[in-house]
């Protein structure tokens, strides 16, 4: 049991106050209402099997932040670092700020933020390893670094920067609500340390002494509907119309028009703020190629190869069905099985690469642990199903001699069944792959364009890959290839059209999205503008070329190859942009701490070599 210091002042203890029965989202605050079976169990903190005597042990607790009062003194962050012994480059709690107005009528709004132990813990749901648990005790969402394999998906889905991916340790860790302190009735270390009268802690939907508001939002805080966070705010001081961030995220927060309130008769009072992109006026369009490389590079390779492999298999399997005899397996007793095993090899390579994205690749097998909730688990499972079916198909068809003991019709059936199942599993796995990116806190990704992009790539890259297999065979047999490349071109054309249509609608969606989406659109059209437009032009031009060659019956291997090279390069750049351009809906940083611009600078300039600069030298 945590030892309460002698003479601990009153402010450090959680007040035992009445709560409403339900929180504003309709969830019971008493987390075990009518469910006694979880009661009276030890949290087993560090092997201690005692049970805390906190009278509200099974009620949802949460932080309370009075934004009028925060002075950014870092006491909460320091207390957290001391309690959890976190290294300088990590923090379970961080203070960032917004600023607005002009001298001397300027205001800085400091925001201290950690985990909000949400009702809808998207981290928990997203985690493929089930490293997260929402406890009935205090409603704490805890994460176990020993289970985590460091995929970082929770850091994508959390809108508050709560999970901290440690590139050194290779795993995530996060705020643990100081449950050891809660067990003895003490507030978490951060809230006890607050010097501004800003950060507090208690039963959710209750106000601390001297506070009166129970707001769910302040400027700079993401839309609470995403996760139903257990944090409440006070913010009464009137703020300037526009509040800007000091970190490099190109977002500002703008006060809603008073007349835009639901009831036009209601004027005055406090208005809410919404995020908006910074003006790109005067900024020049750039290539941004240097910024394309990211921690997500393995995923660029993994997604593209997987899509190509699935697409190529569809071509191989379905082309003969649609009467393209050039693909008939019987024509290539040696090349056909080799091609299948090359596909398997490629996919194996892609899978291995994808594990490099993990902080702890040797724990890759834990990816399946959360099929119930995690899109990552489902994707991994779906790809695994495809991969295994592909393997089964390859063995059944490529090495039929192994199955000579089977009656012919049974083998034939198995061969066909494996093929059709693989054909189905491929696109299904891409659907699950796309679902990973449908993250509310990442508006740039959260659009069906991801699906058209993945299916588009499947068709274009699949057809290209299939074509690559065919080229060496050209001329070496007496088979009629007329129509073969026409067929591939139609597939590629379809892929480009699907992807292009998606991109077109995506741009339209971004222009009307939340500030983060709009800002991402500014990024893609300015910071990466030249790359973005080049990719679009290459796609459009390639589609035109293909169409022209098809309509003019002027197709040639050379023409096809040229288009293919362009398409592949554009696809790689496009996918890399997909990962780096996303602007997450997340907490504002400070000028140094949690400022991506400074972090990049510290790495480039060598400041990061000093551990006390608090910027981890990237290890990828």
């Amino acid at each position: 049991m945590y030892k309460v210091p002698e003479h601990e002042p009153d402010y450090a203890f959680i007040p035992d106050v009445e709560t409403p029965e339900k929180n504003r989202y309709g969830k019971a605050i008493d987390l075990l209402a009518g469910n006694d079976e979880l009661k009276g169990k030890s949290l087993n903190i560090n092997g201690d099997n005692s049970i805390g005597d906190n009278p509200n042990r099974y009620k949802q607790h949460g932080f309370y932040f009075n934004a009028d009062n925060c002075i950014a003194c870092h006491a909460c962050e320091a207390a957290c670092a001391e309690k959890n012994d976190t290294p300088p480059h990590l923090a379970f709690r961080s203070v960032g700020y917004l600023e607005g107005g002009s001298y001397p009528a300027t205001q800085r709004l400091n925001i201290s933020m950690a985990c909000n132990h949400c009702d809808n813990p998207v981290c928990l749901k997203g985690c493929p390893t089930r490293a997260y648990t929402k406890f009935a005790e205090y409603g704490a969402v805890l994460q176990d670094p020993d289970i985590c394999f460091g995929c970082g998906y929770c850091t994508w889905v959390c809108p508050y920067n709560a999970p901290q991916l440690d590139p050194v340790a290779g795993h995530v860790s996060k705020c643990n609500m100081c449950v050891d302190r809660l067990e003895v009735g003490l507030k978490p270390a951060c809230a006890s340390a607050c010097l501004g009268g800003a950060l507090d802690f208690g039963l959710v939907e209750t106000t601390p002494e001297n506070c009166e508001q129970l707001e769910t939002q302040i400027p700079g805080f993401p839309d609470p509907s995403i996760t139903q966070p257990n944090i409440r705010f006070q913010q009464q001081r009137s703020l300037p119309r526009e509040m800007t961030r000091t970190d490099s995220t190109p977002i500002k927060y703008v006060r809603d028009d008073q007349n835009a309130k639901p009831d036009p008769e209601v004027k005055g009072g406090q208005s809410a703020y919404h995020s908006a992109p910074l003006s790109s006026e005067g900024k020049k369009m750039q290539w941004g190629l240097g910024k394309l490389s990211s921690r997500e590079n393995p995923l660029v390779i993994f997604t593209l190869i997987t899509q190509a492999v699935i697409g190529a298999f569809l071509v191989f399997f379905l082309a003969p069905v649609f009467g393209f005899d050039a693909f008939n397996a019987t024509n290539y007793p040696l090349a056909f099985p080799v091609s299948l095993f090359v596909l398997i090899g490629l996919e194996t390579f892609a899978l291995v690469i994808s594990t490099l994205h993990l902080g702890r690749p040797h724990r890759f097998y834990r990816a399946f642990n959360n099929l119930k909730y995690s899109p990552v688990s489902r994707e991994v499972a779906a790809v695994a199903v495809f991969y295994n079916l592909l393997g089964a198909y390859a063995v059944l068809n490529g090495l039929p001699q192994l199955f000579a003991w089977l009656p012919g019709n049974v083998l034939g059936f198995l061969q066909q069944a494996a093929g059709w199942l693989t054909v189905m599993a491929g696109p299904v796995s891409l659907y699950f792959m796309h679902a990973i990116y449908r993250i509310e806190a990442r508006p740039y990704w959260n659009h069906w364009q991801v699906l058209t992009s993945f299916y588009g790539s499947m068709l274009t890259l699949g057809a290209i890959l299939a074509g690559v297999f065919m080229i060496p065979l050209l001329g070496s047999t007496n088979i009629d290839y007329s129509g073969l490349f026409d067929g591939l071109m139609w597939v590629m054309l379809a892929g480009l059209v699907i992807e292009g249509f998606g991109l077109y609608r995506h741009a339209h969606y971004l222009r009307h999205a939340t500030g983060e989406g709009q800002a991402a659109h500014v990024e893609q059209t300015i910071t990466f503008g030249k790359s973005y437009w080049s990719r679009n032009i290459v796609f459009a031009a390639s589609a035109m070329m293909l169409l022209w060659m098809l309509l003019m019956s002027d197709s040639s291997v050379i023409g096809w190859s040229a288009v293919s090279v362009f398409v592949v390069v554009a696809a790689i750049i496009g996918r890399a942009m997909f990962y780096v351009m996303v602007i997450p809906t997340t907490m504002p940083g400070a000028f140094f701490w949690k400022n991506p611009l400074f972090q990049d600078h510290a790495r480039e300039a060598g400041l990061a070599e000093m551990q006390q600069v608090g910027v981890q030298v990237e290890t990828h």
Partner: protein
Amino acid sequence: MLFGRTKKNPIKLTDKGIVEWKYTTCGYCSTGCSIEVGLNDEGKAVSARGVGDADVNRGKLCIKGILEYELFESDGRGRIPLMRDRIHEPFKQASWDEALGRVSDEIKGIQDKYGRDAFAVISTGQIMTEEFYTLGKLARGVMGTNNYDGNTTLCMSSAVSGYKRSFGSDGPPGCYEDFEHTHCLLAIGSNLPEQHPIIYWRMREAREQRHFPLIVIDPRVTMLAQNADMHLAINPGTDVVLLNSFAHVILAEGLQDEDYIKANTEDFDEFKALVAQYDPVTASGITGIDEDTIRNVARLYAKSPAAMTIWTMGINQSTHGSDGVVAINNLNLITGNIGKPGGASLSITGQSNAMGTREWSSCSGLPGYRALENEQDRQDIAEFWGIDPEFFPKKRGMFMTDILPAIETGQIKGLWLIATNPMTSMPNTARIRKTLEKLDFMVVQDAYADVETNEYSHVYLPAAIWAEKEGVFTNTERRVNLIRNVAPPFGESKPDFWIFNEMAKRLAPQGKINFPETTEGAFEEMKQLSKGRMLDISGMSYDKIEQQRGLQWPCKEGEDMGEQRLYTNGEFKHPSGKAKLIPLPFIDNNERPDSEYPFWLNTGRVVEHFHTRTRTGKVGNQNKFSPTPYMEINPDAAKELGIEHGSYVRIVSRRGDAVLLAQCTQRVAKDAVFVPFHFHDCVNRVSLGLLDPHSRQPAYKQCAIRIEPIADQQAAAKMNLASRSY
């Protein structure tokens, strides 16, 4: 659990294995927070927490205190004494005996050859009071140099000087509890949330219980200014005019406390005649504060049943710092706000033991607020120490800021620096380099071997820090608090107390003067010397101090508690027993912005750092909040200059230049920038530091610069990196 795993896994939280907590006082600023350091079963310091029943901090600590335990094993500590013949040679390790022998030989040699005053000692506000007392005994009673001062000249000497001029003695008359009684708080050039977060917390708690108006006077929109009821964004360097104008309004409208003035002050007529010149209209033209606001604040202050003023470096570090303090005292004297609950002139001090050095170090005189100029004081101390009173000079010698120029011109040949880092802290770094090069001999005594000034030392003595020692600090509200020994000194480093005693043995081998073996022994001497004086500590003992979590002086023998306030009976320390109302004509001698250097340069602290970063620059969880120098610049000014947020810029003054990152913020006026002073090879390459005529404190906060964008950002980044060894 609700959802997640079906089987409950045990929860793993960091367990530091603390088996014992030891009582100390924080070694950073002068708030004087009580800290308990947690030790694990290996005796290693692994944690820190505020002491719940300590009146000062009531269980709270700021970022520096929370992480202070990390200092015991931080980078850059000095492990062993170092020596070399010439400053361009590499250091060689030495034994303590060799190093101390060398230092004493050099001191004797220089003093024999050039006179006793040719060897100067500059100490600090960081070591314990017993150490200050011992050093004072060594410098004044054994070495007999009159060029002995502390770096407190850089931070508090204006407050000291102002208190002495107004009240006849140093000593802040108020206390933190005054926040609980005041009806109006004026904060001038003081940014509590950043500089003294715990005092801010005390103030804020008091203000939440019972709201009182908070008026902040500061050219920058600090966090305190933002949280104030009124922010007076004053033109730099014009505080005295504003304070004179407050007095003008009060006297013109008859709001003064006539009885108090008559009973307890003198020279009222001269004062009245002078402030008559500072009507609000005239003052508004100089200060930039409109006349209505001046009248409003003056009336509010005068009409409050109790009103108090706090200030920090915004007043002290100015060409009229001492005058600023006197002006604050004037305001409080004419409104009767001295020595009563909620009425005070309370200087918010910088260093952990700036007060200790003011009281007991003999820097500005003799121990226990005694003056060299006073024959009786010389007599008393000479008798107590057992030396000839004629050994003492009859007038105090040079201030730190005059000692260094005296080195530059050759009057001083040798220097002993204790826990201070002029290479980073003094204005005009280039001049300091040139100065230190000229010394025949310099010994640097510091906890950190990588302290920048060590570049010019001949001998380096590694000192123990903070709770590696035992002794007392005095805080801003005159509270004496105890540092218990928590950890053994790092490597072969030694407590400063031991080093002074060893030096005494070598410099006064006849042992005529007694140097107690323990700090507690020295404390007993101080108690005897304090009896019957303003700073009477004779009622204190180490155990009693720890028990009470600090005791305020005066605390007379037999008393359980000290007294919260000074001058409660209206009796002051001038020979007349009255306080002086001093007329303060305003002379604007600042280097003002012009067409060539169009910006005001203002400097100050950030909460995560302390002074020259020798400590805080190595604690990652502090340093990361500002790991490299930067400047706050108004975005409109930046736009005109073509400077981007987050890019390197060059600032240039008539002294030199510096490279730092630009942070665009509306906190600063369009013609002003703010640069944190903590970083080496940065703002003090540029600063001017004109000296206050009374306190000799440098005006760090006012000079003129120009700002240039840098085209080659990579080269700038490289240059900056080269200056950042920590």
